[in-house]
């Protein structure tokens, strides 16, 4: 109750101190979306004012940045920065070299308890401080957020997210990533919840993509390992899973501490108390981190709609 009051007070405070050009009220707004909007507004304000400190307030120290290469297909994505320090270096260099005259719109914010994702579109121009040359900007981003101590902080961002599925270059896979994901699929067949959960980061986010690659239709299915654990407790006594997984793509970050992968799999369940079987094929996007020592899954997007 106290936390809820704090959240409401904080959101009212945010609204009251927002500058006229800051975030505006939107239909369906909640205290949580107001706070996320404020965090995204701080980020872009920092760029406009060349204030890296303000910008970096939005980011978690474990923040990971991906480059989308204008493609909705994550098999084309690469990892740009593996933590906030790496991002900070890039921001400082950018602000030193360029002036940003950009505005940000936020078409989507989706929240489930302590996890959220959002999309933004930045438009305007970037001016080279030395030459005065201007470059028009129109860039779409996908963000993920985590709420900690009443504050929403960005945990990942895909820059230059495409709104179409473009061709992807043939890419290899990394053995340790493939091994991780194959062991994860075997854990499902074993039917032991703790074995499955052992592959996931405590704060991971599980999404259901509903067979599209566009974030507008995605929903968050699991906000962290605790919620997924509760699901497995309910699910596994009644369903035997069978997974046939193929690793299609994986990519590692510059330091090899962050990874992303795309799999294609046939997932089936056989109900224990009856003859029904359910089966489907799906693509899954995974992000992983080994900042804690071993690889842990940080995001899992079931049923992202891709084409072969």
């Amino acid at each position: 109750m106290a936390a809820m009051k704090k959240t409401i007070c904080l959101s009212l405070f945010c609204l009251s101190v927002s500058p006229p050009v800051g975030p505006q009220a939107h239909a369906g707004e909640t205290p949580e979306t107001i706070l996320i909007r404020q965090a995204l507004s701080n980020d872009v304000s920092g760029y406009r004012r060349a204030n890296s400190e303000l910008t970096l307030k939005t980011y978690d120290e474990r923040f990971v940045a991906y480059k989308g290469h204008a493609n909705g297909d994550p098999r084309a994505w690469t990892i740009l920065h593996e933590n906030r320090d790496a991002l900070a270096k890039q921001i400082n260099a950018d602000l030193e070299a360029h002036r940003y005259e950009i505005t940000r719109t936020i078409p989507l914010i989706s929240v489930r308890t302590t996890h959220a994702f959002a999309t933004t579109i930045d438009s305007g121009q970037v001016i080279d401080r030395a030459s005065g040359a201007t470059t028009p900007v129109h860039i779409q981003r996908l963000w993920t957020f985590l709420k900690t101590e009443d504050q929403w902080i960005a945990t990942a961002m895909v820059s230059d997210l495409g709104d179409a599925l473009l061709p992807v270059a043939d890419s290899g896979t990394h053995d340790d990533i493939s091994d991780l994901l194959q062991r994860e699929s075997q854990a499902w067949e074993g039917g032991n919840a703790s074995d499955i959960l052992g592959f996931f980061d405590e704060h991971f986010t599980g999404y259901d993509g509903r067979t599209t690659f566009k974030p507008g239709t995605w929903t968050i299915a699991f906000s962290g390992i605790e919620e997924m654990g509760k699901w497995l407790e309910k699910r596994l006594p009644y369903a035997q899973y069978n997974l046939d997984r193929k690793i299609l793509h994986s990519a590692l970050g510059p330091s090899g501490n962050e990874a992303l992968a795309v799999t294609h799999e046939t997932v089936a369940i056989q109900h224990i108390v009856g003859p029904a079987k359910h089966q489907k094929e799906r693509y899954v996007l995974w992000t992983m981190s080994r900042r804690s020592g071993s690889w842990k899954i940080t995001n899992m997007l079931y049923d992202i709609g891709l084409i072969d």
Partner: protein
Amino acid sequence: MIAKRLTCLLLFSLSACSTTEEQVIDLLEQMAAHPIYSPGWQQAVDNLATIGRPAARQLIARLNPGLYLGEDYREFRDEQEQLRTGCALALGRIKPRGATAALKDRITAAYTDDERTACLWAIGQIGYSQVGIDALKVQLKDHNPVIRIHAAIAIVKMDDNVGDDEIEDAFSDAQLAKIALQGLEESSYFGVPLLMRLSTDGGPQQQALRQIIDKVKDQLVAQLTAEEPVHRQRAATALGQMGDLGPTQALVNLLTDPSNQVRFSAAAALATLDQAQGIDFLFQALRNTDSILRANAVKFLAEVQSQSGSVESQLISALSAEAPLARAGAAQVLGQARVQTAVLSLIEATTDKTAEVRVNAIIALGQIGTGQSRSRLESLRTDDDATVAYYAEWALGQLGPS
């Protein structure tokens, strides 16, 4: 796998001492574990319906796609369909009024046909609500005729005839006719007027319609002893509309029912069937000193006369009855039923020594609206009784200019 099966068997064997919530969870898992409409799935639906209202909250929750996230996540759409369809059917049998709002959100094209038809059926079974009927009317425009016929049947169950054309059209298609017949059978007394009309239209479904009418008649006879007075009342009325003398004695038994409305409905049904017990009951009530009973008698006699014409001669005779209340009441009924053949008798009644009779005869002449009464009404404009004169003026206004 074997260990899991044993665990589940153990869980089921312990279910006798589990809470209702746990029983519902087990039955939902049974529903998910059996193909839709299979015996195992149907058994789960039956058992959930047997639990009744204590299960309703959990069943309503399963209609919502937002539930299938987090700890209730179900990644297979067809599994969700099994649950949503089964929950809707169970809710249709439990009939919690609060479920309509959740059900009507699942009848749109965003859901599968099984889900939509189950939710349409459940909305109809739960019965009238404005929000429900508004949503059903939208589905009458759906491109899928199966959805339209299910929507139309649900509307009939809400005692509205806006979907009747859709049902009549369905009889030109064997598959749709089957759905319509089943729906009309389930519609009980609400479907009787349409059933009777369809049964006179001819066509290839006549035999099937006769069978449905017989089944509905049996249902209605059983409902004459229902606990709820509204069921007894509506069943009696519908049996009168059916025109079958079979249930006469069952209707006669209701003439001593504790409920006024049931007694009058039974009497009206008997009168419609031209049975003396019903006609006598209504005419006795017409001269009762209790104004409520008299008002009921007028209302029901007017309905009987409008539907069957079976009490016309008795009404005209009653204009000469000894009791002034009976004469006044008969005039009221003749006016409300617009009985043209009673005009001369009503003109005669405008000479009655009792002003109340004269007033009601004048009002009846105004309602019937024939020019035959004009000269008499004009002479009554100067009647000594101010009320008589007032209504004579009113009645002339109803006739229009000469």
